[in-house]
């Protein structure tokens, strides 16, 4: 089995370490006694800074749970999670909220936007909540990158599914978080719109040095990543660098076959 704790190939930026987030011996279990279900079983993982990481695995493998724990949305049963040098396990809700607000960006599969706010208001929402002024130049760069300049005054209901997800990407990028988590961000989109959104994510890593972690079950989506982690039964069972859709698909078929024969 390959260890998921890797030596990063990119150097760090500035004073930051090369690892944006890491999990150490993380266990997440639900229930107790006979009904105890282990969603994450002593997981160790490092998320490299400035990289696009995809987490894959069959339904129930624990991939979403891992992402939620890394992002401070869910608590762990044991183990530690660090964002940069901050241990987030054990933080109180107030601090966690502040951390999510200031240092993390999110893109969900659906229902990413507040229906009462227009596109630009949704994009600047995390900064508004924090009471910070958005960096104008950066904001217009982000808006331009996702190609929404002429849609900023529209409400979510007036935007297509693809446009809505692009607004969500822009929101995640606009606050310059240390790390962006995506939970099947293209799951609800057709292949063309999905490709568009993934293209933006890729470009934000390449051009802007953004760190992104994405949960997906789509081999094509995973092929946009620098590195793919495979989860099964709450454990990291494999990883792959510089994936293509074909190699990812092959590896998955492999797991499926093994799963069936074992």
């Amino acid at each position: 089995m390959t260890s998921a704790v890797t030596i990063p190939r990119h150097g760090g930026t500035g004073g930051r370490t090369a690892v944006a987030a890491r999990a150490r011996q993380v266990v997440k279990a639900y229930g107790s006694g006979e009904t105890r279900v282990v969603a994450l079983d002593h997981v160790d993982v490092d998320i490299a800074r400035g990289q696009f990481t995809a987490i894959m695995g069959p339904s129930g493998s624990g991939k979403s749970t891992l992402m939620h724990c890394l992002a401070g949305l869910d608590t762990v049963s044991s183990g530690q999670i660090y964002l940069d040098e901050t241990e987030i396990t054990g933080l109180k809700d107030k601090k966690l909220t502040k951390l999510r607000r200031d240092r993390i960006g999110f893109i969900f599969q659906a229902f990413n936007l507040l229906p009462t706010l227009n596109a630009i208001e949704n994009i600047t929402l995390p900064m508004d909540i924090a009471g910070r002024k958005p960096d104008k130049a950066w904001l217009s760069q982000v808006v331009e990158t996702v190609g929404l300049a002429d849609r900023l005054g529209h409400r979510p209901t007036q935007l297509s599914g693809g446009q809505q997800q692009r607004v969500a990407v822009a929101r995640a990028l606009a606050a310059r978080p240390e790390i962006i988590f995506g939970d099947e961000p293209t799951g609800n989109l057709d292949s063309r719109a999905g490709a568009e959104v993934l293209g933006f994510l890729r470009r934000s890593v390449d051009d802007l040095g953004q760190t992104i972690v994405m949960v997906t079950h789509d081999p094509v989506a995973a092929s946009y990543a620098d590195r793919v982690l495979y989860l099964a039964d709450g454990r990291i069972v494999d990883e792959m660098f510089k994936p293509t859709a074909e190699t990812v698909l092959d590896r998955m078929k492999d797991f499926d076959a093994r799963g069936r024969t074992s």
Partner: protein
Amino acid sequence: MTVMKTSMRNFYAHKGRMALSAVAVLLSVAFVCGTLVFTDTMNTTFDKLFASTSSDVTVSAKGASDTGETTSDNGKPPVMPASVLGAVRKADGVKSAEGTVFSTSATVVDADKDSLSPTSGAPTIVGNWNGNDARTMEITDGAAPKGSDQVMVDADTADKHHLKLGDEIGVITAVGTHTAKISGIAAFQVTNPGAAIFYLDTKTAQEALVGESNVYTNVNVTAASGVSDAQLKKNVAAEIGGGYKVQTAKETADANRDSVGGFLDVMKYAMLGFAGIAFLVGIFLIINTFSMLVAQRTREIGLMRAIGSSRKQVNRSVLAEALLLGVVGSLLGVGAGVGIAVGLMKLMGMTGMNLSTDDLTVAWTTPVVGMVLGIVVTVLAAYLPARRAGKVSPMAALRDVGAPADARAGAVRAVIGLLLTGAGGLGLYLAAAADKAAEGSLWLGLGVVLSLIGFVVIGPLLAGVVVRVLGAIVLRPLGPVGRMAERNALRNPRRTGATGAALMIGLALVACLSVVGSSMVASATEELDKSVGTDFIIQSDGGQLMTPQAVRAIKSTPGLERVTEYKWTEADFTTPDGKTLDKTAITAADPTYATDLRVETVAGNLADAYRPDSMSVHEKFAEDHGITLGSKIAVAFKNGSTARLTVRAITSSDAVIDQGAMYTSIATLKRYVPADKLPLDDLVFATAKDGQQDAAYTSLKSALHDYPQYTVRDQTDYKQELKDQIGQLLNLIYGLLALAIIVAVLGVVNTLALSVVERTREIGLMRAIGLSRRQLRRMIRMESVVIALFGALLGLGLGMGWGATAQQLLALQGLNVLEIPWPTIIGVFIGSAFVGLFAALIPAFRAGRMNVLNAIATD
């Protein structure tokens, strides 16, 4: 059957969401049932009391009222000679007969001259201890009164005033003050709701109450066995001849009940009226609940339609849920109603009115009325949302949640609402411009109803405008949280409109009444300043007339320049146009009254009306009957002869004090009414010599120390008293309106709670991207505040409009000053903001506790 099953399941699945609607139904039904049980219980109590105190047949003196409670304007009860008793005893079928003497116009004081009369409005009865009383009461301490120095008191009064055997008490009547020591204490066998009763022996009662011996006010007759009351009445009447009032036990009890019943009915219908308002407010809450449930269930309903449910079935399933809600709410309400009735009885107990739970009366109609009302109102309120549910297309199952707004319906609503509001405004305008009170009140009623409905209909449109304005003032400074709260309040204007409208109704009534109330105070104060030229007004607060002894005491007070007596009596008028007006009120006063109260005249000089055989009439009366100066009116005085009085002054109808009074002099009255039938003074005005006001005020108070039933008031006291009285009345009404406001607040809580459920995912998303719990809670609180302020603004605006219109209309009757009570209005407005904060407490708390992951995962 399946329809019922789905409805049942839906009802149980969403019982939390139904809870507040159920409470609204419960409160309204409980108030209705509570009122019914309470008034029925009061009726039972009085029925028992009257049944036990009436003898088989009662003979009363001529001039006694039907209830036998005998007060006449000369301060002494009408009596009959003792010979009547002898005559009654001779009648066939009489087992026994007993003469009684009692009066309800005496005042009883303790040794310190403090009044022992009830403060609850119940009567003070002083009478002789007779066989009838001996049957219904039990002497618990001491013995029955014997001799002129003994008196017996009822146990409740003794308790309340800590009286014991040997204490001295005084009985003050027009005859004089009689003092005696307590010889005994007697307790009622049935519940006595609050009358204070004092017993003397027969001879003493005759002397103290009437000032004559060998007279009776009533004769109580007991039938021999086998003789019916009706037969006995016939026999007695035949024996004693005409000129007396003869009544059977049933007639006496009925007359008694009628006299109390009028008051009970007023109370009952007033309280039912307020329950009705609460129901009206509850309707908004129910409509909102079902609208939200239907909206949240759109996909589910679409699926039902897709797999073959008919519109009717969907419609019916929603109505069936409403039916269940109505049944549950009403059932609990009926139960709570009995509790409310008991609570009211306890409350009355604190004000001095004793009611016993033994008499608790729940008529079979009470639960039926409560249930039917609760269920019908709930189902009717759910009808619109149910119809909307029926219209959900099967496609809704496939579409994403969030139905598009129906723009056309909005336009139709706007037109209808504006038309209604316009019509209401026109009605109010016509009411304000009306020059006849009857016509004006019709317009006012129409204007109030139409403008209220109009506001309810355009509420959602107004919500858009008003919330934006409020948001700009209240919320914008709060940054993004405020902005989101504003957007949330705006996102479903129909919901915000209905929630605000519920609050609007109660607050509109509060605003309207407070405007009318303070205008009354202001108008009366202005009038007092303008027209009252005397320093002190002396009268009793319990409606007793001034005894001659008290008037003498006033007249001998040092430092007074003049004292004016004021009497009131009735007379049959025959006017020059040939009409006879029975029992018309006429005021007789000393000539100085023209100086004490400056009444404007439209013709003649008021002072001339006090010349011999002269009088004044008011403007309207003069117009109606073609009277001019010099016209003669035949005035047949009550208990006196007919005078032909010349009209020497016509007073303006535009006055608040003594409006419509017709004056003559006491000297004139004395010429036609014998001295012993002359009515006592209603009130007395006293004016101090220049510069001696303060000394005179003190002297007057000490001069009347022995007569605690009378109060001396200078103009400041009088104004304050007026203000207090209106203030008390308003507070009572506000208290009753609180029910409607509580239901409206439940409505705000309900809307917020359901909105929070509806926005679960949104809240999850906001929490995920960094909205803190505190910010989330603040957002919900701010939304609540804006909704509450919206309702308050509409309600206060509407209510002030109504109040101002009512004042314009009442200006015809002298309510000339419009005064908007800004402190009250602003207080209510600010209070509404706090109500909003309060309403949001639980929804905000629950939203804050929502688990972020679950919220995101919720479908």
